[in-house]
């Protein structure tokens, strides 16, 4: 396959870059060339290695092999400051702000305008911030502390930060995820201007129409490997999706038919002030209900409140006809509820403990008598579930931190499935795991539903929602904005509801 590339030297490029984290190979021999005056899209599913690639460009990660080229010459970024000094601006998916400092300081940290004797010119900082916000058409007070800003506002601050220095390369990791339509339009206007002034842009988005609208060239990654780099001209959305997924969707989403039974989980008018409002839904036995929405829409927060990790201000949760006491996860477990959390490293597992112990954490009631643990019972229970879920390990006593992401996720699932839940809430069950394991997790969820378990699946992965869910709930800014039966679920209908574009 040949595709014309500009004759000029790329401003910033990666050649044959690989990066591993423990057993996980996040990037394998990836190349990417960013040219001045060109917007380049980076496409790939969740877990394809996009964020790792960005961090390699931004100096956060140093590649294990391969080189970073700046203006054609190899460079080594020893840290984010080096990349920044080379003119690389990055807008990360998750805003990284200083909550105690003012918005203006957040934007100019480390680069404040100075007056005599090297003193920071606080007034100039404030004025420059106000000017940036005027350019972006944003109504924020530069003096306000960053604490308490909404995700969208935080994202705007990040964008202003990236625009505040004359970036030669602007990298944006899903900058539009939390923005409204007009904010997106304004951002794109600014980006187009920058590009026309000769900046190179790298853009990541799950919204294909944004990729086609903004970019000229696209590089696709799959499972950490480079798939293609080509002009977007003459490419269709379907072509791009095929490159990203690389296999038939049926195989990846083995949805079994299941008999839908009685209501197992019923959530009524659940409200936590400022986080989510008036959330009501039901999940029936045998049903997989998808909960879609943008990052920061309040989905995980709802799950946490249902399970009793967080308190809520109003509403009630019923499991199999019994009202749950708020704020009591152990009672929720007894009632037959299980929550597989979003962040397996921080919330799902104790990384320094063995597989056996991690799975054992949920089973003390079964494996101990009179307060004394029965190690053999714990071991056989863990072994049982590890085998059932085909966790790949050398010994059960291995520390979970040494396993790959997919296997870690299986251990979290084993830990919760071992409690025999009637209602299973899974939060981003396949984030950052390889495609093979992903299909296994989907098969597992599907067979659980077929056995009569009610499954609530939170996911930011649209194809996953489309492929697995019987019914889809969509949240936007803390509210459920749509409930779609399987027949009406399309990428467009979900995205419209998730961005609040429905009337």
């Amino acid at each position: 396959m040949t595709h014309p590339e500009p004759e000029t030297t790329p401003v910033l490029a990666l050649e044959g870059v690989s990066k591993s984290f423990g057993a996980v190979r996040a990037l394998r021999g990836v190349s990417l060339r960013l040219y001045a005056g060109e917007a380049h899209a980076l496409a790939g599913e969740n877990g394809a290695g996009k964020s790792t690639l960005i961090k390699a460009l931004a100096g956060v990660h140093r590649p294990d092999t391969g080189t970073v080229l700046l203006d054609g010459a190899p460079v080594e970024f020893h840290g984010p400051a080096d990349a920044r000094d080379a003119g690389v601006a990055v807008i990360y998916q998750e805003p990284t702000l200083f909550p105690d400092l003012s918005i203006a300081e957040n934007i100019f940290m480390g680069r404040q305008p100075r007056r005599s004797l090297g003193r920071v010119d606080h007034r100039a900082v404030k004025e420059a911030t106000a000017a940036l916000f005027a350019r972006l058409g944003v109504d924020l007070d530069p003096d306000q502390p960053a604490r308490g800003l909404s995700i969208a506002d935080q994202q705007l601050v990040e964008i202003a930060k990236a625009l505040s220095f004359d970036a030669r390369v602007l990298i944006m990791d899903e900058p539009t995820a939390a923005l409204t339509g007009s904010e997106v339009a304004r951002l794109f206007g600014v980006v187009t201007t920058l590009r026309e002034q000769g900046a190179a842009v790298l853009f990541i988005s799950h919204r294909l129409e944004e990729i086609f609208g903004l970019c000229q060239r696209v590089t696709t990654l799959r499972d950490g490997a480079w798939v293609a780099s080509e002009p977007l001209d003459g490419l269709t959305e379907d072509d791009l999706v095929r490159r990203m997924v690389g296999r038939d969707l049926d195989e990846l989403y083995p949805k079994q038919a299941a008999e839908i039974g009685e209501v197992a989980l019923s959530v009524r008018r659940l409200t936590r002030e400022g986080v989510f409002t008036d959330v009501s839904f039901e999940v029936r036995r045998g049903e997989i209900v998808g909960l879609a929405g943008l990052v920061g829409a309040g989905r995980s927060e709802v799950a946490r409140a249902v399970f009793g990790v967080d308190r809520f201000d109003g509403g009630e949760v019923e499991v199999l006809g019994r009202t749950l006491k708020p704020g009591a996860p152990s009672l929720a477990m007894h009632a037959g509820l299980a929550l597989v959390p979003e962040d397996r490293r921080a919330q799902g597992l104790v990384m320094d403990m063995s597989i056996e112990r991690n799975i054992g954490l949920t089973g003390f009631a079964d494996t101990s008598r009179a307060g004394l643990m029965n190690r053999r019972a714990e071991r056989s229970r863990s072994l049982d579930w590890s085998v059932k879920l085909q966790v790949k390990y050398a010994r059960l006593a291995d520390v979970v931190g040494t396993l790959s992401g997919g296997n870690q996720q299986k251990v979290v699932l084993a830990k919760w499935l071992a409690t025999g839940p009637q209602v299973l809430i899974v939060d981003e069950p396949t984030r950052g795991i390889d495609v093979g394991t992903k299909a296994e997790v989907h098969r597992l969820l599907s067979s659980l539903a077929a056995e009569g378990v009610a499954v609530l699946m939170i996911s930011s992965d649209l194809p996953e929602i489309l492929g697995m869910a019987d019914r889809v709930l969509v949240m936007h800014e803390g509210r459920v904005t749509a409930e779609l039966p399987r027949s009406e679920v399309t990428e467009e209908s979900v995205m419209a509801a998730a961005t609040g574009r429905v009337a």
Partner: protein
Amino acid sequence: MAVTARPVHEDTVPEPTAGRRLLDKVFKVRELAVAGVLVVMLLATELSNTEFLSEQGVKDLLLNATILALVATGQAVVVITRNVDLSVGSVLGISAFAAGNYLQGGGSSVLAVLYAVAVGAVFGVLNGALVSLGKVPALVVTLGTLYVVRGIDSIWVGSDQIVAADLPDGFVDFGHDGLWVVPYLALLAVAVLLCVGYYLRSYRSGRDMYALGSSPEAANLAGVPVRKRIMTAYVLCGALAGLAGALYLARFGNVDSATGNGYELTVVSAVVVGGVAFTGGSGTVYGAALGALLLTSINSVLPAIGVSSVWVTAINGILLLLAIAVDRILALRVAAVLRKQAAQMRSARHA
């Protein structure tokens, strides 16, 4: 497609700046509150015992607070970066002895002070290196250096003692005299305090310290040289502890191997009472100095109003708990206001 209706009824019209103003106030008022408590306490004591704020009384008050305020200034910088230095008491002790030892041999006063500062700075480098390179929690590292430095001090000092008679007269006078009621030591401490406060507010590296304490991860991404700044904070803290050691020598003229024992806890209390958040990122050195003044004032106030001094420790503890409780309550209230505000703006956007 089924779109659920969203009934939104907020009774109040969103006032977007209300929460912001409250926040601003909280940040500014924290130091004012300490100052207010201090003034009320001193005035009340003066009313019940008119001798209390006499010329000598004020002088004593300032002298007593000076050394604590200096060490608290350095400690505040470290705490702002989300670390802590527990070795300050030991460093103060060993620097005081170093300076005294040098003066006994007939050295000059100015060089003695610089010598003490240098000794403190060296231990600051040690702490900074262990914390920033070792990536070990500062609490544990500096607990270790607390004992190590104290141990070195004990071996070096042995059963020796430095007494005022061994010191040059000029140095001892410097520790007692002053301009009217304000001792020279206090003037020096105020000068240092203003410099450090100005540095933290007006220099990039000073702002970096706040950034670092507020969110270490974001600081790294923003290109803040994390290790260098932590090192700077510890060296500054060590140097100020060293300076405080020299002033201690000038004021008391008496140093042995137990000098500064247990001082670190008083220092940390002063910093926290003064409104520097133990979780880093907020607070000022002025607050810490006020906290030091408040804690030492209590030492003088209680005898003046006839309360036994055995109560001092308990009252210091209660103050500390109060300060933390106030911070926590304020933080919760601010969070509640912000959440409510976000909800209102959201529903306004949806309306």
